[in-house]
Protein backbone atom coordinates (compact mmCIF):
# COMPACT_ATOMS: atom_id res chain seq x y z
CA UNK A 1 0.00 0.00 0.00
CA UNK A 2 2.82 2.34 0.87
CA UNK A 3 4.42 1.55 -2.46
CA UNK A 4 1.19 2.13 -4.32
CA UNK A 5 0.52 5.61 -2.93
CA UNK A 6 4.10 6.76 -2.47
CA UNK A 7 4.17 10.17 -4.19
CA UNK A 8 7.65 9.39 -5.55
CA UNK A 9 6.15 6.57 -7.56
CA UNK A 10 3.65 8.93 -9.15
CA UNK A 11 6.07 11.72 -10.05
CA UNK A 12 6.49 10.34 -13.57
CA UNK A 13 2.89 11.23 -14.35
CA UNK A 14 3.64 14.96 -14.23
CA UNK A 15 7.16 14.89 -15.55
CA UNK A 16 7.85 15.69 -19.17
CA UNK A 17 5.06 14.79 -21.55
CA UNK A 18 4.32 11.37 -20.04
CA UNK A 19 0.74 12.12 -19.17
CA UNK A 20 -0.03 13.71 -22.50
CA UNK A 21 1.59 10.75 -24.25
CA UNK A 22 -0.61 8.28 -22.36
CA UNK A 23 -3.68 10.35 -23.10
CA UNK A 24 -2.85 10.47 -26.79
CA UNK A 25 -2.65 6.66 -26.78
CA UNK A 26 -5.96 6.45 -25.00
CA UNK A 27 -7.49 8.79 -27.57
CA UNK A 28 -6.45 6.29 -30.26
CA UNK A 29 -8.35 3.57 -28.38
CA UNK A 30 -11.42 5.75 -28.27
CA UNK A 31 -11.16 6.42 -31.99
CA UNK A 32 -10.81 2.73 -32.77
CA UNK A 33 -13.79 2.05 -30.53
CA UNK A 34 -15.82 4.71 -32.33
CA UNK A 35 -15.03 3.39 -35.81
CA UNK A 36 -15.75 -0.19 -34.77
CA UNK A 37 -18.91 0.85 -32.99
CA UNK A 38 -20.39 2.46 -36.08
CA UNK A 39 -19.44 -0.48 -38.30
CA UNK A 40 -20.66 -3.08 -35.80
CA UNK A 41 -23.99 -1.37 -35.23
CA UNK A 42 -24.57 -1.28 -38.99
CA UNK A 43 -23.52 -4.84 -39.72
CA UNK A 44 -25.22 -6.03 -36.54
CA UNK A 45 -28.56 -4.64 -37.68
CA UNK A 46 -28.17 -6.26 -41.09
CA UNK A 47 -27.31 -9.60 -39.48
CA UNK A 48 -30.22 -9.35 -37.08
CA UNK A 49 -32.64 -8.70 -39.95
CA UNK A 50 -31.16 -11.54 -42.00
CA UNK A 51 -31.54 -13.82 -39.04
CA UNK A 52 -35.21 -12.90 -38.75
CA UNK A 53 -35.74 -13.42 -42.46
CA UNK A 54 -38.63 -15.62 -43.54
CA UNK A 55 -36.35 -17.38 -46.02
CA UNK A 56 -35.17 -20.35 -44.01
CA UNK A 57 -31.84 -20.68 -45.79
CA UNK A 58 -31.00 -17.05 -45.10
CA UNK A 59 -31.98 -17.13 -41.45
CA UNK A 60 -30.10 -20.36 -40.76
CA UNK A 61 -26.99 -19.11 -42.55
CA UNK A 62 -27.09 -15.83 -40.63
CA UNK A 63 -27.66 -17.74 -37.39
CA UNK A 64 -24.62 -19.96 -37.92
CA UNK A 65 -22.50 -16.96 -38.87
CA UNK A 66 -23.53 -15.05 -35.74
CA UNK A 67 -23.11 -18.02 -33.41
CA UNK A 68 -19.65 -18.85 -34.70
CA UNK A 69 -18.22 -15.36 -34.44
CA UNK A 70 -19.67 -14.47 -31.09
CA UNK A 71 -18.54 -17.73 -29.50
CA UNK A 72 -14.90 -17.32 -30.47
CA UNK A 73 -12.49 -15.32 -28.30
CA UNK A 74 -12.05 -11.81 -29.68
CA UNK A 75 -8.28 -11.92 -29.28
CA UNK A 76 -8.29 -15.13 -31.32
CA UNK A 77 -10.13 -13.40 -34.16
CA UNK A 78 -7.85 -10.36 -34.10
CA UNK A 79 -4.73 -12.52 -34.06
CA UNK A 80 -6.06 -14.67 -36.89
CA UNK A 81 -6.69 -11.69 -39.13
CA UNK A 82 -3.34 -10.24 -38.21
CA UNK A 83 -1.67 -13.41 -39.44
CA UNK A 84 -4.02 -14.30 -42.28
CA UNK A 85 -4.57 -11.05 -44.17
CA UNK A 86 -2.10 -11.35 -47.05
CA UNK A 87 0.72 -8.86 -47.35
CA UNK A 88 -0.42 -7.29 -50.65
CA UNK A 89 -3.67 -6.31 -48.96
CA UNK A 90 -1.81 -4.75 -46.07
CA UNK A 91 0.38 -2.82 -48.48
CA UNK A 92 -2.62 -1.74 -50.50
CA UNK A 93 -4.28 -0.49 -47.34
CA UNK A 94 -1.20 1.44 -46.36
CA UNK A 95 -1.06 3.07 -49.79
CA UNK A 96 -4.72 3.96 -49.77
CA UNK A 97 -5.02 5.36 -46.26
CA UNK A 98 -5.01 9.19 -46.29
CA UNK A 99 -2.18 11.01 -44.56
CA UNK A 100 -4.42 12.94 -42.24
CA UNK A 101 -5.56 9.75 -40.50
CA UNK A 102 -4.07 9.21 -37.02
CA UNK A 103 -0.74 7.38 -37.08
CA UNK A 104 -2.20 4.27 -35.51
CA UNK A 105 -4.77 4.08 -38.31
CA UNK A 106 -1.95 3.93 -40.83
CA UNK A 107 -0.51 0.73 -39.40
CA UNK A 108 -0.66 -2.08 -41.98
CA UNK A 109 -2.37 -4.19 -39.33
CA UNK A 110 -5.12 -1.69 -38.70
CA UNK A 111 -7.36 -3.42 -41.20
CA UNK A 112 -6.97 -6.72 -39.35
CA UNK A 113 -7.70 -5.05 -36.02
CA UNK A 114 -10.89 -3.37 -37.21
CA UNK A 115 -12.03 -6.46 -39.13
CA UNK A 116 -11.63 -8.62 -36.03
CA UNK A 117 -13.30 -6.17 -33.68
CA UNK A 118 -16.17 -5.61 -36.11
CA UNK A 119 -16.83 -9.27 -36.88
CA UNK A 120 -17.04 -10.16 -33.21
CA UNK A 121 -19.02 -7.15 -32.06
CA UNK A 122 -21.45 -7.13 -34.97
CA UNK A 123 -22.31 -10.75 -34.15
CA UNK A 124 -22.90 -9.95 -30.49
CA UNK A 125 -24.90 -6.81 -31.29
CA UNK A 126 -26.95 -8.73 -33.88
CA UNK A 127 -27.96 -11.15 -31.16
CA UNK A 128 -28.88 -8.31 -28.83
CA UNK A 129 -30.95 -6.56 -31.52
CA UNK A 130 -32.67 -9.78 -32.51
CA UNK A 131 -33.61 -10.40 -28.89
CA UNK A 132 -35.06 -6.89 -28.73
CA UNK A 133 -37.13 -7.38 -31.85
CA UNK A 134 -38.33 -10.84 -30.83
CA UNK A 135 -39.28 -9.59 -27.37
CA UNK A 136 -41.83 -7.27 -28.95
CA UNK A 137 -45.33 -8.70 -28.89
CA UNK A 138 -46.40 -10.29 -32.14
CA UNK A 139 -49.45 -8.04 -32.21
CA UNK A 140 -47.32 -5.02 -33.08
CA UNK A 141 -46.20 -6.48 -36.40
CA UNK A 142 -49.64 -7.86 -37.11
CA UNK A 143 -51.30 -4.54 -36.37
CA UNK A 144 -48.88 -2.83 -38.74
CA UNK A 145 -49.64 -5.41 -41.42
CA UNK A 146 -53.37 -4.99 -40.97
CA UNK A 147 -52.95 -1.25 -41.44
CA UNK A 148 -51.59 -2.08 -44.85
CA UNK A 149 -47.91 -1.51 -44.14
CA UNK A 150 -45.49 -3.61 -46.11
CA UNK A 151 -42.84 -5.73 -44.35
CA UNK A 152 -40.13 -3.10 -44.59
CA UNK A 153 -42.48 -0.29 -43.66
CA UNK A 154 -43.64 -2.09 -40.54
CA UNK A 155 -40.04 -2.90 -39.65
CA UNK A 156 -38.89 0.67 -40.12
CA UNK A 157 -41.85 2.45 -38.58
CA UNK A 158 -43.15 0.10 -35.91
CA UNK A 159 -40.96 -2.85 -34.97
CA UNK A 160 -37.41 -1.48 -35.07
CA UNK A 161 -38.00 1.78 -33.18
CA UNK A 162 -39.57 -0.08 -30.29
CA UNK A 163 -37.48 -3.24 -30.39
CA UNK A 164 -34.14 -1.47 -30.59
CA UNK A 165 -35.06 1.07 -27.95
CA UNK A 166 -35.68 -1.76 -25.53
CA UNK A 167 -32.17 -2.99 -26.01
CA UNK A 168 -30.39 0.31 -25.42
CA UNK A 169 -29.00 -0.72 -22.01
CA UNK A 170 -27.72 -4.04 -23.35
CA UNK A 171 -26.21 -2.30 -26.36
CA UNK A 172 -24.45 0.28 -24.24
CA UNK A 173 -23.04 -2.40 -21.98
CA UNK A 174 -21.66 -4.15 -25.05
CA UNK A 175 -20.19 -0.87 -26.29
CA UNK A 176 -18.42 -0.50 -22.94
CA UNK A 177 -17.03 -3.99 -23.40
CA UNK A 178 -15.94 -2.99 -26.89
CA UNK A 179 -14.18 0.05 -25.50
CA UNK A 180 -12.20 -2.17 -23.13
CA UNK A 181 -11.52 -4.67 -25.89
CA UNK A 182 -9.75 -2.12 -28.07
CA UNK A 183 -6.68 -2.73 -25.89
CA UNK A 184 -6.40 -6.15 -27.53
CA UNK A 185 -5.17 -4.68 -30.82
CA UNK A 186 -1.95 -4.21 -28.87
CA UNK A 187 -0.92 -7.72 -29.99
CA UNK A 188 -0.78 -6.48 -33.58
CA UNK A 189 1.66 -3.75 -32.61
CA UNK A 190 -0.72 -0.88 -33.18
CA UNK A 191 0.34 2.25 -31.32
CA UNK A 192 -2.42 2.58 -28.75
CA UNK A 193 -2.50 3.11 -25.03
CA UNK A 194 -0.93 -0.20 -23.97
CA UNK A 195 2.01 0.43 -26.29
CA UNK A 196 2.31 3.99 -25.07
CA UNK A 197 2.31 2.70 -21.49
CA UNK A 198 5.18 0.36 -22.33
CA UNK A 199 7.08 3.21 -23.93
CA UNK A 200 6.58 5.45 -20.91
CA UNK A 201 7.86 2.68 -18.65
CA UNK A 202 10.88 2.05 -20.83
CA UNK A 203 11.94 5.62 -21.47
CA UNK A 204 10.88 7.73 -18.51
CA UNK A 205 13.88 6.97 -16.29
CA UNK A 206 16.38 7.56 -19.05
CA UNK A 207 18.10 10.94 -18.80
CA UNK A 208 18.41 11.08 -22.60
CA UNK A 209 14.96 10.34 -23.99
CA UNK A 210 12.97 10.68 -20.79
CA UNK A 211 13.13 12.96 -17.79
CA UNK A 212 15.09 10.73 -15.47
CA UNK A 213 12.04 9.96 -13.34
CA UNK A 214 11.29 6.27 -13.05
CA UNK A 215 7.79 5.20 -14.12
CA UNK A 216 6.91 2.00 -12.23
CA UNK A 217 4.80 -0.48 -14.18
CA UNK A 218 2.15 -0.81 -11.51
CA UNK A 219 1.40 2.90 -11.43
CA UNK A 220 1.54 3.32 -15.20
CA UNK A 221 -0.96 0.55 -15.84
CA UNK A 222 -3.12 1.72 -12.99
CA UNK A 223 -3.25 5.15 -14.60
CA UNK A 224 -4.30 3.55 -17.89
CA UNK A 225 -6.94 1.51 -16.09
CA UNK A 226 -8.34 4.59 -14.39
CA UNK A 227 -8.75 6.30 -17.77
CA UNK A 228 -10.92 3.42 -18.93
CA UNK A 229 -12.88 3.34 -15.68
CA UNK A 230 -13.68 7.06 -15.94
CA UNK A 231 -14.83 6.93 -19.56
CA UNK A 232 -16.83 3.72 -19.14
CA UNK A 233 -18.51 4.96 -15.98
CA UNK A 234 -19.47 8.15 -17.76
CA UNK A 235 -20.86 6.11 -20.66
CA UNK A 236 -23.03 3.97 -18.43
CA UNK A 237 -24.27 6.96 -16.43
CA UNK A 238 -25.13 8.76 -19.65
CA UNK A 239 -27.06 5.78 -21.00
CA UNK A 240 -28.93 5.46 -17.72
CA UNK A 241 -30.00 9.08 -17.86
CA UNK A 242 -31.02 8.87 -21.52
CA UNK A 243 -32.99 5.75 -20.78
CA UNK A 244 -34.99 7.39 -18.00
CA UNK A 245 -35.75 10.39 -20.18
CA UNK A 246 -36.77 8.20 -23.11
CA UNK A 247 -39.05 6.15 -20.91
CA UNK A 248 -40.78 9.25 -19.65
CA UNK A 249 -41.22 10.46 -23.19
CA UNK A 250 -42.26 7.28 -24.97
CA UNK A 251 -43.34 4.86 -22.25
CA UNK A 252 -41.24 2.09 -23.80
CA UNK A 253 -39.91 -0.24 -21.10
CA UNK A 254 -36.30 -1.18 -21.64
CA UNK A 255 -35.00 -4.59 -20.74
CA UNK A 256 -33.04 -4.28 -17.52
CA UNK A 257 -29.48 -5.41 -17.68
CA UNK A 258 -27.13 -4.88 -14.83
CA UNK A 259 -24.40 -3.93 -17.28
CA UNK A 260 -23.08 -7.45 -17.62
CA UNK A 261 -21.05 -8.96 -20.37
CA UNK A 262 -22.36 -9.46 -23.90
CA UNK A 263 -24.23 -12.73 -23.78
CA UNK A 264 -25.55 -12.05 -20.37
CA UNK A 265 -27.41 -9.16 -21.90
CA UNK A 266 -28.95 -11.48 -24.42
CA UNK A 267 -29.76 -14.15 -21.86
CA UNK A 268 -31.67 -11.63 -19.81
CA UNK A 269 -33.28 -10.07 -22.83
CA UNK A 270 -34.86 -13.31 -23.94
CA UNK A 271 -36.17 -13.99 -20.44
CA UNK A 272 -38.77 -11.37 -19.53
CA UNK A 273 -37.56 -9.31 -16.58
CA UNK A 274 -39.10 -10.30 -13.28
CA UNK A 275 -41.24 -7.50 -12.00
CA UNK A 276 -41.09 -7.01 -8.26
CA UNK A 277 -44.53 -7.73 -6.92
Amino acid sequence: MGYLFDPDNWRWLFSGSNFRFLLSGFWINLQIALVTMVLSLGFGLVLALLRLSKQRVVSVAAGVWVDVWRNLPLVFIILYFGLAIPEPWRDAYQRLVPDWFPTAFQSPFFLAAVAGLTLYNSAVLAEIMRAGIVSLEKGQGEAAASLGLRYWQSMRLVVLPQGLRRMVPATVSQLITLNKDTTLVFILGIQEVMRHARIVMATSDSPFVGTGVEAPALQVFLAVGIMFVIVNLALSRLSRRLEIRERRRTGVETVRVAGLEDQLAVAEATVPPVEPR
Partner: protein
Amino acid sequence: MSDLWEVLVRHFPEFRSGFLVTLQLVAVSFAIAIGVGLFVGALRISPVRWIRLAGGLYVEFFRNIPLLVLLSISYLGLLRAGIRIGPWVAATASLGLYTAAYVAETIRSGVFAVGKGQIEAALSLGFPYRRVLSQVVIPQAVRSVIPPLGSLVIAMIKNSAIIGVTFALADDLLKEARLVNSRTFQTNEVFFWAAVGYLLLTLSATFAVRALERRLVVRR
Protein backbone atom coordinates in the same frame (compact mmCIF):
# COMPACT_ATOMS: atom_id res chain seq x y z
CA MET B 1 -8.67 -30.50 -47.41
CA SER B 2 -6.07 -33.15 -46.73
CA ASP B 3 -3.89 -30.40 -45.27
CA LEU B 4 -6.56 -29.75 -42.69
CA TRP B 5 -6.52 -33.31 -41.36
CA GLU B 6 -2.78 -33.53 -41.58
CA VAL B 7 -2.33 -30.50 -39.34
CA LEU B 8 -4.69 -31.94 -36.76
CA VAL B 9 -3.07 -35.37 -36.77
CA ARG B 10 0.47 -34.08 -36.65
CA HIS B 11 -0.09 -31.45 -33.97
CA PHE B 12 -2.78 -33.13 -31.93
CA PRO B 13 -0.63 -33.28 -28.76
CA GLU B 14 -0.13 -29.50 -28.80
CA PHE B 15 -3.79 -28.79 -29.41
CA ARG B 16 -4.81 -31.22 -26.68
CA SER B 17 -2.47 -29.81 -24.07
CA GLY B 18 -3.52 -26.25 -24.95
CA PHE B 19 -7.17 -27.23 -24.70
CA LEU B 20 -6.61 -28.75 -21.27
CA VAL B 21 -4.68 -25.70 -20.04
CA THR B 22 -7.54 -23.43 -21.16
CA LEU B 23 -9.96 -25.70 -19.32
CA GLN B 24 -7.86 -25.52 -16.14
CA LEU B 25 -7.48 -21.75 -16.40
CA VAL B 26 -11.23 -21.34 -16.68
CA ALA B 27 -11.95 -23.78 -13.85
CA VAL B 28 -9.57 -22.14 -11.39
CA SER B 29 -10.59 -18.60 -12.36
CA PHE B 30 -14.24 -19.50 -12.08
CA ALA B 31 -13.72 -20.81 -8.56
CA ILE B 32 -12.07 -17.50 -7.64
CA ALA B 33 -14.81 -15.52 -9.38
CA ILE B 34 -17.56 -17.37 -7.54
CA GLY B 35 -15.86 -17.05 -4.17
CA VAL B 36 -15.02 -13.35 -4.47
CA GLY B 37 -18.24 -12.63 -6.37
CA LEU B 38 -20.39 -14.12 -3.59
CA PHE B 39 -18.54 -12.05 -1.04
CA VAL B 40 -18.81 -8.80 -3.01
CA GLY B 41 -22.41 -9.59 -3.89
CA ALA B 42 -23.12 -9.97 -0.19
CA LEU B 43 -21.50 -6.58 0.42
CA ARG B 44 -23.73 -5.09 -2.26
CA ILE B 45 -26.94 -6.15 -0.52
CA SER B 46 -25.82 -5.33 2.99
CA PRO B 47 -28.18 -3.17 5.05
CA VAL B 48 -25.18 -1.03 6.06
CA ARG B 49 -24.59 1.86 3.68
CA TRP B 50 -20.81 2.07 3.65
CA ILE B 51 -20.43 -1.69 3.17
CA ARG B 52 -22.69 -1.43 0.12
CA LEU B 53 -20.53 1.41 -1.10
CA ALA B 54 -17.36 -0.67 -0.75
CA GLY B 55 -18.96 -3.45 -2.80
CA GLY B 56 -20.03 -0.92 -5.41
CA LEU B 57 -16.52 0.46 -5.65
CA TYR B 58 -15.13 -3.01 -6.31
CA VAL B 59 -17.72 -3.73 -8.99
CA GLU B 60 -17.31 -0.43 -10.83
CA PHE B 61 -13.52 -0.68 -10.81
CA PHE B 62 -13.16 -4.26 -12.00
CA ARG B 63 -16.02 -4.08 -14.47
CA ASN B 64 -14.79 -1.02 -16.29
CA ILE B 65 -11.10 -1.81 -16.52
CA PRO B 66 -9.80 -3.83 -19.49
CA LEU B 67 -8.70 -7.36 -18.59
CA LEU B 68 -5.42 -6.73 -20.37
CA VAL B 69 -4.69 -3.84 -18.02
CA LEU B 70 -5.47 -6.04 -15.01
CA LEU B 71 -3.11 -8.69 -16.34
CA SER B 72 -0.42 -6.06 -16.84
CA ILE B 73 -0.86 -4.79 -13.31
CA SER B 74 -0.87 -8.20 -11.69
CA TYR B 75 2.05 -9.52 -13.68
CA LEU B 76 4.41 -6.75 -14.79
CA GLY B 77 3.27 -4.26 -12.16
CA LEU B 78 3.69 -6.48 -9.15
CA LEU B 79 6.90 -7.95 -10.53
CA ARG B 80 8.50 -4.49 -10.73
CA ALA B 81 7.17 -3.69 -7.29
CA GLY B 82 9.12 -6.66 -5.98
CA ILE B 83 6.11 -8.84 -5.32
CA ARG B 84 6.61 -12.23 -6.92
CA ILE B 85 3.48 -14.11 -7.75
CA GLY B 86 3.73 -16.89 -10.29
CA PRO B 87 2.39 -16.41 -13.83
CA TRP B 88 -0.37 -18.90 -13.12
CA VAL B 89 -1.49 -16.99 -10.03
CA ALA B 90 -1.37 -13.67 -11.89
CA ALA B 91 -3.43 -15.09 -14.74
CA THR B 92 -6.15 -16.79 -12.72
CA ALA B 93 -6.36 -13.99 -10.16
CA SER B 94 -6.84 -11.38 -12.90
CA LEU B 95 -9.46 -13.34 -14.76
CA GLY B 96 -11.12 -14.39 -11.51
CA LEU B 97 -11.25 -10.93 -9.93
CA TYR B 98 -12.42 -9.39 -13.20
CA THR B 99 -15.30 -11.84 -13.54
CA ALA B 100 -16.09 -11.61 -9.83
CA ALA B 101 -17.42 -8.10 -10.41
CA TYR B 102 -19.93 -9.49 -12.92
CA VAL B 103 -20.78 -12.39 -10.60
CA ALA B 104 -21.49 -9.92 -7.80
CA GLU B 105 -23.83 -7.93 -10.05
CA THR B 106 -25.59 -11.10 -11.15
CA ILE B 107 -26.13 -12.13 -7.54
CA ARG B 108 -27.38 -8.71 -6.61
CA SER B 109 -29.94 -8.61 -9.41
CA GLY B 110 -30.94 -12.19 -8.59
CA VAL B 111 -31.63 -11.19 -5.02
CA PHE B 112 -33.54 -8.10 -6.09
CA ALA B 113 -35.65 -10.19 -8.44
CA VAL B 114 -37.07 -12.01 -5.42
CA GLY B 115 -38.98 -8.89 -4.50
CA LYS B 116 -39.07 -6.65 -1.52
CA GLY B 117 -42.55 -7.81 -0.53
CA GLN B 118 -41.40 -11.34 0.24
CA ILE B 119 -38.48 -10.11 2.31
CA GLU B 120 -40.74 -7.73 4.22
CA ALA B 121 -43.28 -10.49 4.74
CA ALA B 122 -40.64 -12.82 6.14
CA LEU B 123 -39.24 -10.09 8.37
CA SER B 124 -42.69 -9.24 9.66
CA LEU B 125 -43.22 -12.90 10.51
CA GLY B 126 -40.31 -12.51 12.88
CA PHE B 127 -37.60 -14.24 10.81
CA PRO B 128 -34.14 -12.92 11.61
CA TYR B 129 -32.27 -11.34 8.67
CA ARG B 130 -29.96 -14.33 8.28
CA ARG B 131 -32.85 -16.76 7.96
CA VAL B 132 -34.68 -14.50 5.54
CA LEU B 133 -31.61 -14.70 3.33
CA SER B 134 -30.97 -18.42 3.68
CA GLN B 135 -34.56 -19.66 3.51
CA VAL B 136 -36.46 -17.13 1.41
CA VAL B 137 -34.11 -15.16 -0.79
CA ILE B 138 -31.27 -17.50 -1.73
CA PRO B 139 -33.33 -20.55 -2.83
CA GLN B 140 -35.25 -18.34 -5.27
CA ALA B 141 -32.31 -16.22 -6.33
CA VAL B 142 -30.30 -19.28 -7.32
CA ARG B 143 -32.80 -20.04 -10.06
CA SER B 144 -32.64 -16.67 -11.70
CA VAL B 145 -28.87 -16.54 -11.36
CA ILE B 146 -28.08 -19.77 -13.22
CA PRO B 147 -28.49 -18.53 -16.83
CA PRO B 148 -26.41 -15.35 -16.39
CA LEU B 149 -23.73 -17.31 -14.54
CA GLY B 150 -23.59 -19.66 -17.48
CA SER B 151 -23.03 -16.71 -19.81
CA LEU B 152 -20.22 -15.59 -17.55
CA VAL B 153 -18.53 -18.98 -17.89
CA ILE B 154 -18.72 -18.57 -21.66
CA ALA B 155 -17.30 -15.05 -21.42
CA MET B 156 -14.52 -16.45 -19.23
CA ILE B 157 -13.61 -19.12 -21.76
CA LYS B 158 -13.28 -16.40 -24.38
CA ASN B 159 -11.43 -14.01 -22.09
CA SER B 160 -8.97 -16.71 -21.06
CA ALA B 161 -7.49 -16.55 -24.56
CA ILE B 162 -5.93 -13.19 -23.66
CA ILE B 163 -3.67 -14.79 -21.05
CA GLY B 164 -1.45 -16.85 -23.29
CA VAL B 165 -0.81 -14.56 -26.25
CA THR B 166 -0.15 -11.30 -24.43
CA PHE B 167 2.20 -12.20 -21.60
CA ALA B 168 2.76 -15.92 -22.19
CA LEU B 169 1.50 -16.59 -18.68
CA ALA B 170 0.19 -20.02 -19.66
CA ASP B 171 0.39 -22.30 -22.70
CA ASP B 172 -3.30 -22.29 -23.44
CA LEU B 173 -5.07 -23.22 -26.66
CA LEU B 174 -4.46 -19.94 -28.49
CA LYS B 175 -0.83 -19.83 -27.40
CA GLU B 176 -0.26 -23.37 -28.64
CA ALA B 177 -1.99 -22.54 -31.91
CA ARG B 178 0.27 -19.55 -32.35
CA LEU B 179 3.35 -21.71 -31.67
CA VAL B 180 2.26 -24.36 -34.15
CA ASN B 181 1.54 -21.64 -36.68
CA SER B 182 4.97 -20.11 -36.28
CA ARG B 183 6.49 -23.48 -37.16
CA THR B 184 4.18 -24.55 -39.99
CA PHE B 185 2.80 -21.26 -41.40
CA GLN B 186 -0.45 -23.09 -42.14
CA THR B 187 -2.42 -20.29 -40.53
CA ASN B 188 -5.86 -21.19 -41.84
CA GLU B 189 -5.60 -24.85 -40.88
CA VAL B 190 -4.12 -24.21 -37.44
CA PHE B 191 -6.63 -21.53 -36.53
CA PHE B 192 -9.46 -23.65 -37.85
CA TRP B 193 -8.68 -26.36 -35.32
CA ALA B 194 -8.14 -23.87 -32.52
CA ALA B 195 -11.54 -22.37 -33.36
CA VAL B 196 -13.06 -25.85 -33.19
CA GLY B 197 -11.51 -26.21 -29.73
CA TYR B 198 -12.95 -22.93 -28.50
CA LEU B 199 -16.35 -23.54 -30.04
CA LEU B 200 -16.40 -26.99 -28.42
CA LEU B 201 -15.96 -25.28 -25.05
CA THR B 202 -18.31 -22.33 -25.51
CA LEU B 203 -21.10 -24.21 -27.28
CA SER B 204 -21.08 -27.11 -24.84
CA ALA B 205 -21.26 -24.57 -22.01
CA THR B 206 -24.24 -22.97 -23.76
CA PHE B 207 -26.06 -26.27 -24.04
CA ALA B 208 -25.22 -27.27 -20.47
CA VAL B 209 -26.68 -24.03 -19.14
CA ARG B 210 -29.79 -24.42 -21.26
CA ALA B 211 -30.33 -27.97 -19.96
CA LEU B 212 -29.81 -26.87 -16.37
CA GLU B 213 -32.23 -23.99 -16.86
CA ARG B 214 -34.89 -26.33 -18.20
CA ARG B 215 -34.56 -28.63 -15.22
CA LEU B 216 -34.92 -25.77 -12.79
CA VAL B 217 -38.01 -24.51 -14.55
CA VAL B 218 -39.69 -27.91 -14.39
CA ARG B 219 -39.05 -28.21 -10.69
CA ARG B 220 -40.60 -24.86 -9.90
